[in-house]
């Protein structure tokens, strides 16, 4: 089977602190149809990984490669990476004052697909997906994320995931502030999105989010490296014993 | 004579009447040296006091000759715990023309409290200039307290030259004088230099208060903050000019200014120009000003609890001042509090 995402020996430093090595040789392979989870203590480099895949200006790759569907993507700009079919749900999504949610969704759909969405069909899609996520349709007239609660912002991220339907979804859930409600939204979102062709990479430090999910692989990330890979039982073990065993 | 003083660094429309302030005063003839007392642990710092014949020029726009100079050097690595107290006692129509030069060498720290005080009811004059140079990683809190009587004129100028990682904190407590002009000019020359400038003023009777504060952000990641809290009553007039100037290249700097003025009479006048000049994209600048009378709801609440209107006003004004007064050394704070109470009564 063709690899969807392949990361080889990835090393990164922070843009504002070149002496700080964050990822120290990370390897990861994700096949279509799989659900992967990366867990690790605070500061292990989890969020850095998600941001590096998306070529965030905050991190610099010093070694290693990232391949997506067989194509090297390290040097692509963030928008080109998104257009290849990768989506990232942010732990703290940005607010864009003066831009309505409706306008934003149209623009992003247009950007990703390269063609203007059929307005009638797209509106119907938005309405349907919002209903499934328990969002009020009136929200489309509000300014993007401005004044949204944490839960509303999270729903908004999942809404975009469903509308853009990428090949790979990276869910950065490192924010510990997630309440039960938000966790349910993420779980539901994955449920609605997941199929045999696409894949999910969940980045988290808590196991709560994994309760109702069928997970293929769990990776433990400590100090910039994956120190152990296993199945969902590994997550259980972490829930019981924490990371001590894997920390130096 | 009349002179236009305290000029804005960048001129705006003349019709706005804020480019400068016109002040009437007599250039004093030098009669005697004002008494000055320096107290505190002077064993580790160098203090030199001398009379100078030359001109003392300040950014207020005044040049006066023959002055007394106090030069203080806080040597490298020296940290003085208790503040050094410098007190000018003015009497018998004194003309205090003085300069205090303070040099903080690397990694040093020392606090100062500089007070000018009227000792009698005579009309005195003061042109006081402070020159602060802060070398790498030095820090200090300098507090200036003006307690001159309501017939006196005070011209106070402060110049800061702050180098890498230095952290200078200034508090100006303006409690007296008929005419009082303040000029603060700060160069944040190198990376992470920091200047905070807090001011409290009380304008009474027909006094004129004129503040011209300027912060020049040159180094990267420099930080400035101005907080001005004041109250005006009777027929007092106040001008506040606060300029934050972000020079091109001072990336990741932040500058903030806040001015709040409470007007307690219908005949006073408050004018403000919180100015931001910005030639660098990567900065955060913000200012806010607010003016008006004491919030009615608060007043009503206190009066319903038995306070008279005057007492309630006083309490609310004091509340606004407390944040700034907290940084004043406790010994002086008590005295200032009682003076403020008296002024507001």
């Amino acid at each position, binding site marked *: 089977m063709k690899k969807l995402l392949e990361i080889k020996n990835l090393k990164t430093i922070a843009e504002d602190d070149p002496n700080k090595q964050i990822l120290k040789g990370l390897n990861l392979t994700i096949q279509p149809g799989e659900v992967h989870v990366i867990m690790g203590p605070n500061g292990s480099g989890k969020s850095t990984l998600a941001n590096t895949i998306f070529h965030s200006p905050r991190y610099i790759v010093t070694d290693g490669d990232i391949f997506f569907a067989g194509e090297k993507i390290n040097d692509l*700009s963030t928008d080109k990476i998104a257009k290849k079919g990768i989506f990232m749900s942010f732990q703290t999504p940005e607010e864009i004052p003066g831009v309505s949610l409706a306008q934003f969704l149209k*623009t992003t759909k247009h950007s990703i697909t390269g063609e203007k969405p059929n307005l009638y069909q797209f509106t119907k899609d938005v309405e349907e997906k919002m209903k499934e996520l328990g969002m009020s349709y009136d929200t489309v007239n509000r300014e993007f994320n401005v004044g949204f609660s944490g839960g509303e912002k999270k729903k908004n991220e999942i809404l975009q995931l469903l509308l853009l339907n990428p090949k790979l979804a990276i869910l950065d859930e490192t924010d510990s502030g997630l309440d039960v409600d938000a966790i349910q939204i993420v779980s539901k979102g994955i449920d609605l999105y997941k199929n045999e062709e696409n894949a999910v990479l969940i980045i988290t430090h808590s196991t709560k989010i994994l309760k109702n999910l069928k997970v293929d692989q769990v990776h433990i990330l400590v100090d910039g490296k994956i120190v152990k890979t296993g199945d969902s039982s590994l997550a259980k073990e972490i829930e019981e014993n924490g990371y001590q065993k894997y920390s130096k | 004579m009349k002179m236009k003083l305290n000029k804005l660094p*960048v001129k705006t429309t003349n019709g706005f009447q804020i480019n400068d302030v016109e002040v009437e005063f007599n250039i004093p003839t030098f009669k005697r040296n004002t008494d000055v007392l320096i107290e505190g642990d002077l064993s580790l710092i160098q203090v030199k006091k001398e009379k100078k014949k030359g001109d003392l020029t300040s950014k207020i726009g005044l040049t006066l000759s023959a002055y007394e100079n106090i030069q203080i050097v806080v040597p490298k690595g020296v940290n003085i715990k208790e503040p050094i107290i410098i007190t000018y006692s003015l009497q018998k129509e004194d003309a205090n023309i003085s300069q205090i030069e303070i040099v903080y060498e690397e990694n040093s720290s020392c606090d100062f409290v500089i007070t000018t005080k009227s000792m009698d009811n005579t009309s005195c004059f003061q042109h006081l200039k402070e020159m602060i140079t802060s070398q790498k990683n030095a820090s200090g809190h300098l507090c200036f307290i003006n307690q001159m009587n309501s017939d006196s004129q005070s011209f106070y100028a402060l110049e800061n030259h702050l180098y890498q990682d230095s952290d200078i904190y200034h508090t100006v407590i303006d409690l007296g004088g008929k005419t009082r002009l303040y000029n603060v000019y700060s160069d944040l020359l190198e990376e992470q230099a920091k200047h905070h400038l807090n001011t409290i003023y009380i304008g009474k009777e027909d006094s004129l208060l004129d503040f011209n504060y300027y912060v020049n952000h040159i180094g990267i990641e420099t930080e400035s903050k101005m907080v001005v809290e004041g109250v005006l009553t009777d027929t007092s007039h106040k001008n506040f000019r606060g300029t934050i100037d972000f020079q091109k290249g001072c990336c990741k700097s932040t500058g903030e200014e806040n001015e709040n003025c409470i007007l307690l009479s219908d005949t006073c006048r408050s004018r403000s120009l919180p100015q931001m*000049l910005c030639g660098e994209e990567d900065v955060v*600048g*913000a200012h*806010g000003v607010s003016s*008006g009378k004491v919030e009615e709801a608060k007043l009503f609440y206190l009066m319903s609890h038995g306070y008279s209107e005057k007492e309630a006003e006083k309490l609310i004004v004091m509340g606004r001042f407390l944040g700034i007064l907290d940084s004043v050394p406790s010994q002086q704070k008590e005295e200032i509090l009682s003076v403020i109470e008296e002024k507001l009564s």
Partner: protein
Amino acid sequence: MAKTDVTKYMDSNTRNIYNLKANNQNLQKEYGLTEELIRKLSSEKEEPEWALAIRLKALKLFFELEDPDWGPDISYLDIRNIATYVKPVKGEVRKWEDVPEDIREVFDKLGIPEAEKQALAGSGAQFDSEIVYHNLTEDLKKQGVIYTSFDEGLKNYPELVKKYFTKAVPLTDHKYIALHYALFSGGSFVYIPKDAELDRPLQSYFRLNEPGAGQFEHTLIIVDEGAKLEFIEGCSAPGYNELNLHAGCVELFVEKNASLRFSTIENWSKNMLNLNTKKCYVSEGGKIEWIMGSFGSKVSMLYPLSVLNGEGARCEFTNISFAGSGQNLDTGLKIIHNAPRTSSLVNAKSISKDGGICTFRSNVWVKKQAKHSKLSLSCESLMLDSESRSDTVPVNTLETDDVIFAHEAKIGKISDQAIFYLMSRGMTEEEAKGLIVRGFAEPIAKAFPVEYAVEMNRLIDLELEGTIG
């Protein structure tokens, strides 16, 4: 209001439309600034004697007054090089068909006649120094509404004009208002009678076509007691290498309980010195709303003044300036609170890019008698690079304690993290910035009539493309 499709002309080559140059052979063009020229101008316009007297007095003042010693440098302006009067041979008409073909073509492409048909109660069009077209619907004429060129107003309603002319903006205000009063030509005269309400706006469009020319139109609007008016001003010019000068003047009078919404979208070419003066007197219970979008000109100096003279008078001021390469837009406002319970609400934004300079300059004065007044001012500046400048110079004066006053200002840039977020949603860096800038301008765009909001967004897009016209 019906939606006008001005946008159909505004595809990818919008800039070319603003750049259309009419090849007008049939015109009379005068240079210089002499008493002789001014007398000739006045007599050709068949003006009353008192109007000529004002011109001559202003001419003298112009030579006496100094250039401003603050703000942008305009010392290179030499009035001898400006064509002070440019007149098309054919006069003002009431039907678009009668406008000379080359001029009509320009207005056609700008969508002006189309807009009139669909959304306006009346419209006027000025080409260089003279109004070439003016029209008002019949039912409004019957109601007693007057909407003519200023010259016609002076001829047909001399008493009414005389009562208000120069009363808001005196000759002595500054050097370039003196120049204006010496040379005024064109512009509009509007009178809305008591309690009349216009359901659609009036619009005047000003086009400066000749290279090296000056435009000195005078707009005088009186909204009588209880009446309501929305007035729209549009300005544009093709780009030339020679310096053009615009020294217009707007005098507005909002009488008791009347209201006026005055919108301007200004897209002068970048060889224009825009030294414009606007003033409004508001009586008891009246309201003035200023909505301004400033995109064009090389240098702009414009600070509309609102004098709140009657109890309960209100002022709302909404402005956006966008300065690109080579532009110095020095704009702002003045408000005088002269009566009790007056209120003002200010929302000003600016964007600077590619070395452009934006200055917000304001003077707000609450007089002693203006008890129980409320003021809220907010200005926000966005800098898109470090070649540009953004200065905020707000003066506030309070002479009474009984006032609620708040002023806030912010300067900043677009956050890198916001750009990263949008790029992760497939937008290029340019698209991401564009979306954020449009969002920044949105609260201002919303205040404009629909078709102008569309034009404003197009202008923002053009500025962001970095094309310089």
